């Protein structure tokens, strides 16, 4: 099912309510814990939309939410700015111009966020969590959580840039159990 997101923070809550109703109808029979699934979807959609407002430079996105085999798929697409990030003080942006290995985009005392380019037009995001020490103070915690929240809520999180129409698609898969 398709949902239009107007890039406004005020539109996120009504959008969440609409998608929640759709997910309940679509997958309730396919999961043991619908509340946990809905929570994960809420976190993912909130962050996909927040990223769109902050970074796309566009006014509208299209979200698709559907079941595919044993997964729930959430996709957000726009024709705004391609994904970019700072790595080693350099901004990297899609489409990539060189072959790259896995990049650590952010690391603090608790989380490491990494991006594995799949080719020049797509990449997969990963998060690794660390054990915090007893004398942990919170002073070394990064203040950027958006992609980390999506990674931790999803089974798979992939970004794709389409050079033909300049579109960006963020695809999140959640395994249904």
């Amino acid at each position, binding site marked *: 099912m398709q949902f239009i997101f107007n890039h406004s*923070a*005020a539109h996120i*809550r009504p959008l*969440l309510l609409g998608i929640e109703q759709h997910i309940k109808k679509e997958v309730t029979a396919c999961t043991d814990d619908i509340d946990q699934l809905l*929570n994960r979807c809420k976190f993912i959609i909130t962050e996909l939309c*927040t990223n769109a407002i902050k970074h796309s430079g566009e006014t509208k996105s299209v979200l698709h939410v559907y079941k595919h085999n044993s997964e729930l798929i959430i996709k957000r697409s726009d024709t705004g700015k391609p994904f970019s990030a700072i790595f080693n003080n350099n901004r990297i942006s899609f489409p990539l111009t060189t072959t790259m290995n896995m990049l650590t985009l952010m690391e603090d005392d*608790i989380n490491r966020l990494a991006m594995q380019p799949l080719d020049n037009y797509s990449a997969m995001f990963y998060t690794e969590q660390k054990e915090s020490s007893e004398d942990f103070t919170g002073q070394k*915690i990064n203040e*950027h959580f958006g992609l980390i929240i999506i990674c931790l809520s999803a089974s798979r999180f992939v970004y794709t840039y389409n050079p033909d129409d300049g579109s960006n698609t963020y695809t999140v898969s959640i395994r249904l159990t």
Partner: protein
Amino acid sequence: MILDTKKTGVLPVSRITYQDANLEIADQFKKELLALIDEGNPKVILNFETVTYIDSSFLGAMVAALKHAMSINGDIYLVGLRKDIHNMMQLIRMDKVFKIYTHAEDVA
């Protein structure tokens, strides 16, 4: 005002007055919280009972304020979290960073 602050106990209790704790109010929230801390309240209780969802921008503002509070031997205590927001805090391990209680009265 995003924070409604009352000082009836030892520590001030600041209730977030918005349902949507998101990027739209994150900067103003941070400004108000930092001002409260700098007014001689290094330890603050944040009451989330009104909040129905929270995004990464707001979380970032909370962490920035916590770092500031800790730099002057203060702290920020969270109370009144809905179950899903508490779940998110656990998911990103912010439950290791913030001290979370059910009620303001539980904060020692």
